[in-house]
Structure formats: C-alpha cells, structure tokens
C-alpha cells in the first residue's frame, strides 16, 4: 500500500501547483479548440478577390466563388489589399481578376487570372478549390472560343449555345471508396483528428514534466529518507512511477471526457481507447522517471523534457498526419510511442476496430513502458543509493 501512498502524494503535489492546473486541464482543451477552428470544416478559410472591372465574366467568377461552401469570399477594392491580406494571413488565398475579361475572351485569347496563396497552412488545397470553381465558369467560354474558331460564328452567339450545351454534357464522375470496412471520411468529425493527437502529445508532455518533481524529491533528500524507513527500494520506485502514471492518466481521461462532452469527439471503442491511454501513460511515466533519475538539475530536465515531448510528438505524427509522411519518415516515426498510439486510435476511429484489433499496437506500447520503467528503476536505484 505504501506504493499507492507515495503515488498519491506525487499527484497531490502536482495539482497543488496552480500553473500545472493550467497546463494539464486548460491548455490542451484550448488547443483542441484552436486546431479545430484552424483546420476544421466548420470554419471556412477566407479568399480575397479583386475585380479590376465588373464585366460579365468576372462577375460570374465572383458569383461561382461565393457559391463555394468551403471558402469564405471577400471582395476588396484594391489589388494591394488582396496581397496584404494573404501576406498577413487573414485569408488563405487571393484572386486577382484582370480588366477586360469579356473582351479578352471574345477575341479568343486566354484570360490570365492572378492567384496568390499562403505558403503554409491550407493554401494549396484552397488554390485547387478556386481552380475547380473558375474552371467551371470558364468551361462554356472555352467551348465558345473553340466553336468560334471552328465555324466562324461570333463569340456572343457561341457562348449562348455553349451555356445551353454545358448543362447537357455528362461529365465523368469520380467515385471515392476505401479498402476494408472503412467509415472515413464522412464520419470523421472536425475535432476527431485533433483530439487524439493532442491527447498523445499532452499525456507525454505532462509525464515528462513530472521529472522535475522527482528531481526535487531527490534534491530534498526525501528519497533517501524514505529508504531509511523500512521501505524497500522497489516500493519507492513503484510509488514514484505510479505518481507520474496517475497524473498522465488523469489528464488523458479528462481530455477524453471533455472532448466527448463538448466537441462530441468520436474515440471509437471505449475500452480500446482507455487501454491505449493506460499504455501511453505508462510509457510517459517511464520516460519521465528516466529523465528525472538521469538529470540532477530540474531546469535542465525541464528543457530536455519540452524538447523531447514536442520533438517526438512532431516526429510521431501528433502534429501532422502520419499518412503524408514519406516511407522513410514513417519508419522513423514508428521509433516514437506516439506513432503507435496514433495508429491504434486511427484503427478504433477510422476502421471501427475493437480492442482485439489494436493488440499489436498495445503490445508495442507496453514493451516501451517496461523497458523505460526498468531503465528508470535501475538509474534511480543508482542515484538514490549513491553516497
């Protein structure tokens, strides 16, 4: 029972510190919300448009872009304002419609439309949405130009015919399906992806931050005093590990419950989801213990902890979807426990998997936990008993 007492004291110490309340409970939720807002579907990214001249064709383009649901269109008076808006990042892309689009088109020439996009974020995707919308507007124009060149009939007349014909053309459809009993992408909610990534990132970050408490315990001689009582080494080590494990688990459960309650995040099979969290918390506890028993300066451990937690999260796919990693980077990613945990969550959420389906990932995570905890126990034994 002493293990539990030591663990409980550690948890109490953690939450007495008010700043930890912020990092453990407030910050992750704020970030899930922020990322949901940033990349989610509910909030359309902005596109700024400048019309050098309000002629028929350019009005059609503006109308088509306005009708596009995935973007939020804003028409600006000055082309420089469009450029500034993209540079400042208040919109993701800008469209510059030239003067005399009608004349250029009716002369059979190519209309040149200026396009600016953010080099970061979702600029690329927005550009292709804009491209598709404008291509649709320009489709009858191209057809009219073609007919004009073929038959010598005037542009106006050809365009009127093309406008009529374009409705009757049967375009090639694109049907997307996925292998297996896939349920993506329609059921993947706006916050689903963000939530599991944040969970993995923060559980590990909190566990690593726990290393400084362990260092303080050692510095103040509490560990040595505990050892002078009839308490075996293994109990102290287990108790300290339980403390880190408990904090990580509390935070993880908190994120899960709150994201379900507020953002209706789908975590898949509840048993499986909690088991992944337990495994990940154990890995985090092991890493935190190892860090806390290796360093003797809590500021150094804190710095290394932040680098490890953020760096491994980025490498492991907790900041950027794993499926866009190159195959080499994917292999590197699977050195981190993060990637395994995210794979397991993806299995539960995207494929509707059960606990049985994620056994391999759980196995790898528990292996990490065992190795890290053993290393940490050995290191801690050495540093506590060192004269």
């Amino acid at each position, binding site marked *: 029972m002493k293990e539990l007492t030591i663990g409980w004291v550690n948890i109490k110490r953690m939450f007495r510190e008010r700043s930890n309340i912020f990092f453990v409970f407030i910050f992750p939720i704020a970030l899930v919300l922020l990322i949901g807002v940033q990349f989610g579907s509910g909030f359309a990214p902005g596109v700024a448009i400048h019309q050098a001249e309000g002629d028929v064709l350019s009005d059609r383009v503006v109308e088509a872009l306005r009708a596009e649901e995935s973007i939020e269109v804003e028409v600006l008076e000055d082309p420089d304002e469009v450029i500034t808006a993209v540079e400042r990042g208040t919109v993701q892309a800008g469209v510059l419609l030239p003067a005399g689009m009608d004349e250029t088109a009716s002369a059979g020439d*190519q209309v040149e439309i200026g396009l600016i996009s953010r080099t970061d974020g979702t600029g690329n995707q927005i550009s292709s949405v804009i491209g598709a919308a404008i291509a649709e507007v320009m489709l009858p124009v191209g057809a009219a130009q073609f007919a004009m060149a073929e038959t010598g009939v005037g542009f106006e007349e050809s365009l009127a015919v093309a406008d009529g*014909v374009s409705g*009757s053309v049967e375009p090639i459809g694109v049907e997307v399906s996925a292998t297996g009993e896939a349920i993506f992408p329609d059921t993947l909610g706006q916050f689903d992806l963000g939530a599991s990534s944040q969970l993995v990132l923060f559980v590990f970050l909190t566990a690593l931050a726990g290393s400084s408490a362990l260092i303080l315990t050692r510095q103040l001689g509490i560990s040595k005093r505990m050892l002078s009582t009839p308490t075996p080494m293994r109990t102290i080590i287990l108790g300290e590990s339980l403390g880190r494990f408990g904090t990580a688990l509390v935070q993880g459960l908190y994120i899960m419950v709150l994201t379900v309650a507020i953002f209706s995040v789908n975590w898949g099979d509840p048993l499986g989801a909690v088991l992944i969290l337990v495994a990940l918390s154990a890995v985090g506890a092991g890493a935190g213990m190892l860090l806390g028993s290796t360093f003797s300066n809590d500021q150094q451990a804190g710095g290394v902890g932040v680098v490890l937690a953020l760096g491994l999260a980025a490498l492991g796919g907790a900041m950027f979807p794993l499926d866009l990693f190159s195959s080499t980077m994917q292999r590197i990613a699977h050195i981190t426990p993060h990637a395994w945990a995210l794979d397991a969550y993806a299995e539960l959420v995207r494929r509707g998997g059960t606990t049985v389906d994620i056994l391999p990932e759980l196995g790898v995570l528990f292996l990490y936990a065992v190795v890290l905890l053993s290393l940490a126990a050995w290191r801690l034994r050495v540093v506590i008993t060192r004269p």
Partner: protein
Amino acid sequence: MGAALRIAGKDLRLRVRDRSVLILGIIAPLVLSYIFYLVFGPAATGQGLSLEYGVVDDDRSEISTSFTAVLEGAAADGILELTTFDESAGAASSLDEGEIDAYFHIPSGLGDSVFANQAATIDVVGDVDSPTSTQIAASFAEQFASGVASSQTAVATAAVVSGQEVTPEFIGSLGQDPASAAMSFSFIDETAATKQLDASTFFAAGMAVFFLFFTVQFGVTGLLEEERQGTLARLMAAPIARVSVITGKAILAFILGVVSMAVLVVATTLLLEADWGAPVGVAVLVIAGVLSAVGIMGLVASVAKTPEGAGNLGAIIAVVLGMLGGTFFPIASSGGILANLTYLTPHAWFMLGLAELGSDAPWTAALPAAAAIMVFALVTGGLSYILLRRRLAQ
C-alpha cells in the same frame, strides 16, 4: 552603471556554468525547428509529400490513356509515384500491402460512354489509413474529368452552332484539338512575389522567438533567487542603488537573449538554409524582440512570489503568447477574433517584421514591426521597473 555591469557579469558566469540556458536557449529551438522543418516542410512546399498511387486502365481508350499520361507526367515531375497495374486485383493487393496509398481504376467502356455522352466514372480506391492521400488522388481525377468535360462541351457547342450531330466523322473533321478549350484561362501564380516566410525560415524564426522568452527568464528570475537566498538583502545593504540591481538583471537577460538569438540566426541559416533577410533589419527586430521579452518576463518576476512561481507563470505566459503569436502555426488564417488577438503579442509582430524583410527588402522594412514590438518592451519594461523598485524598497 558599474555595479549593474558587475552584477550582470556575476550572473552571466553563473548561468554559463549551469547548462540549462544552453539547453533552452539554443539546443531546444534548434532541434525543434529542424524536426518541424523535416515533418512540416514537405507539406508547406508541396514537394516531397509521399503520394504513392497505382493506376489500372481497363478501358484503353483515347480518353483513358490521356488520363494515365497526365498521371505519368505528374510522376515525372516528382509530384507522385505511379505504378501501373494490369488488373485491379493486383492494385488491390498492393494497396493491402501498403505499397501504395490509393489507386485509380478506369473501368472499360469509359471512353465509349464519354463519346456517347453517357454517365461514366473513374474509381479512386484509397487506403483507409491514408485519407489525405486519397483525397488528393480524387482531386487529380476530378481535375481530369473537368478537362474532359470542357472538350465535350466544346465539341457539342461546335456541332450545335454548325447544325450538325456529334459523330466520329464530325470530331474527325474538327480543325483543332477539343482539349484546347480548356485553355481559355490560365493562372498566373504571384505567390512568389508576396512577402511570406518560407517553411524553414518560419520554423527557425518561430522556435527562436518562442524559446527566447524562456531564455530571458533565466536572467530575470535571478532577482527572485537572490531574494530567497538572502543575498538580495545584502546587496541592498551595500552602497548600490536599487536601479543598478534591477538593471544588472535586465542586462543579463538582454545578453542571454541576444546571444541565443544570434547563434540561432547563424545556425539556422547554415543548417536549415533559413533566409532571415537583411542582417541590419534582423538585428533591429532581434533587439526589439529581446527587449520585449525582458519587459514581459520582468513583469512576471515582479508579481511572482518565488522563483518557481515566476518560472511557472513565465512558462504559461510564454506558451500562450507563443501559440497566439503564431510561432507554431500561423494563427491569423483562422480568422475572427484570434486573427486580431494575435497582434497583441510581440511574437506576431516579430514574424510579421521578418516577412516584411523578405529576402531582398531593405533593412528599413522591418522598422514598423520593430516599433510595434518596442511598444510592448517600453510598456511592460516600465511597469516592471516600477513594481520591482517598490518591491526592493520593502
């Protein structure tokens, strides 16, 4: 001033011996910006994204081969990797093995259906674990479909205008390629001319200014450590003005900040090929940025009771300002309140100033942003000076 410099010098030796400042001030931002660049770089530049597709052409018509030609062209440009399969079973098993992310299946009869103006589809089958790659594959197919639609419309329009039916003979009689109908417009990509940071500079600058606040904190919280250790009372008893004690700590914080930023600018330029822009402009921004960090962290120190308290509050402030200031990902693009709130952080102005500098703007382009940062520095610095002076008087 002499006393202030001596205090700063003593603290500097202390900080150099304790390696924490080295870890947080230089190693952390350098390692993280490298990792971020490695992970996010491909997405930001659109190059080196891993898109592995397969294609099965059961149709082998003029239209289906033009689609495979488009894909092969994209493969030749290095945008994607393409494997051609003879039958869909082969592609499906390759997908199961995880060798490809998605495959295109062109069913037989597609070409005939298009000529007969009947419904036809291209199937995109994706790996359930590669939703993003599958979406991109679908957009390739849609883009092609829209090109075909434009040819279809062109031919149909020409037929109606000349009062004929769309027959193979009519198509054969056409003087131009119907595909040219898709050339009625083109995009002039003017992105390169805009002032935006490229991926490596963004991550290098973002991480540098994010960790700057932690680095500077080491200097400022020194005052609280002296207070707890009782050395502050002794300093107060010595013939040293209060202003010298405060200035000493501020000078140290400033030196730590400037040195770490300078090392990071040089290191990321050499290692990550970050392009910070005109050196004088960067120097102005760095100095203003460090001063604002000293001011804000000084304010934290003046309200905190213990060094740990200052450390924790400082971490919260640094993380919140860093996130809000868009050092991890650009915040302004989310629009709304956040897009305006971001300018309440010196971080956002720092990044903005660097973007204004670009690669070839004169150094003066950084001045407006630097001035905005200096407002933060002066307000918080002045306030913390008053509060700390009052605290030392007690």
